[in-house]
């Protein structure tokens, strides 16, 4: 990371002092907000089943679009990241001794996350490609 060239003006200093954990903390928030915003829309689109096939099929047709499919891939990745990182947070909070092993633990979670990303991205980009070909 780049060295800090000027002091923060805040009384609190910078939010975190450069541990890798600040990135997972930030990603946890960003993915969390993204997921809840999608959930708001998703509850409403699913509720359309209560108005019958025409209403529901017209609304879900909005997802049949390559750009929306890329957003969908982002959503799935966000859910996987948020879940794994949340599991890491929960483990550390319930078993504080794990803090001593925070770096290998985080590395293990990151590797697992990346390994999951590969098939998920492959499959969903394939679906997007099929949609473009149609």
């Amino acid at each position, binding site marked *: 990371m780049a060295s800090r060239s000027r002091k923060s003006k805040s*009384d*609190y*200093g910078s939010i975190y002092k450069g541990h890798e954990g600040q990135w997972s903390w930030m990603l946890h*928030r960003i993915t*969390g*907000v993204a*997921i*809840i915003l999608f*959930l*708001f829309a998703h*509850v*409403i689109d*699913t*509720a359309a*089943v*209560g108005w*019958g*096939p025409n209403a*529901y*099929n017209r609304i*879900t047709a909005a*997802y*049949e679009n390559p750009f929306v*499919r890329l957003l*969908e891939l982002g*959503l*799935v990745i966000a*859910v*996987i990241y948020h*879940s794994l990182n*949340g*599991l890491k*947070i*929960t483990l*550390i*909070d*319930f078993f*504080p*001794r794990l*803090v*001593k092993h925070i770096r290998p633990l985080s590395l293990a979670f990151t590797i697992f996350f990346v390994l999951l990303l590969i098939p*998920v991205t492959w*499959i*969903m980009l394939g*679906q997007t490609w099929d*949609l473009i070909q149609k």
Partner: protein
Amino acid sequence: MATTTTPRTSDPVPPRRGSDTTLGRDRPLGGFELWTWLFMRISGLLLLVLAVGHTLIMHLPAGGVSRIDFGFVAVRWQSPFWRTWDWMLLMLALVHGINGLRNITLDYVRKPGVRFALNMGYYVIGFTLMVLGTVIVVTFDPTKWGPIAP
């Protein structure tokens, strides 16, 4: 809800209850915030199954979300298992997500009036969606629009 902050004068030592170790992360000492803290972790573990399972089941099999239409939902919700799964996911995800928004707002929004307005907005949206989702999951009856074709 704390609405004021005190400037930090030295490195904070997280206060911990019932433990003489300084290991671990800061956590609320009690009251409402401790219960929401605990709820986030317990619901998080449940959502690890409910939300990740839902995501993988809906998006990854052949056809992806293209296969999801009214008939798909009609067949799927014939099973009380999936209705229960989806309802639990709805409720837990909304409370978990709304509380997350509340936490973020408490971190970044300093003005008490704005905090209050934002939080009330989250609660109204969350409550409305819980009611809407619950009504649909419980009352959905596809036979109103003809026989179910699997």
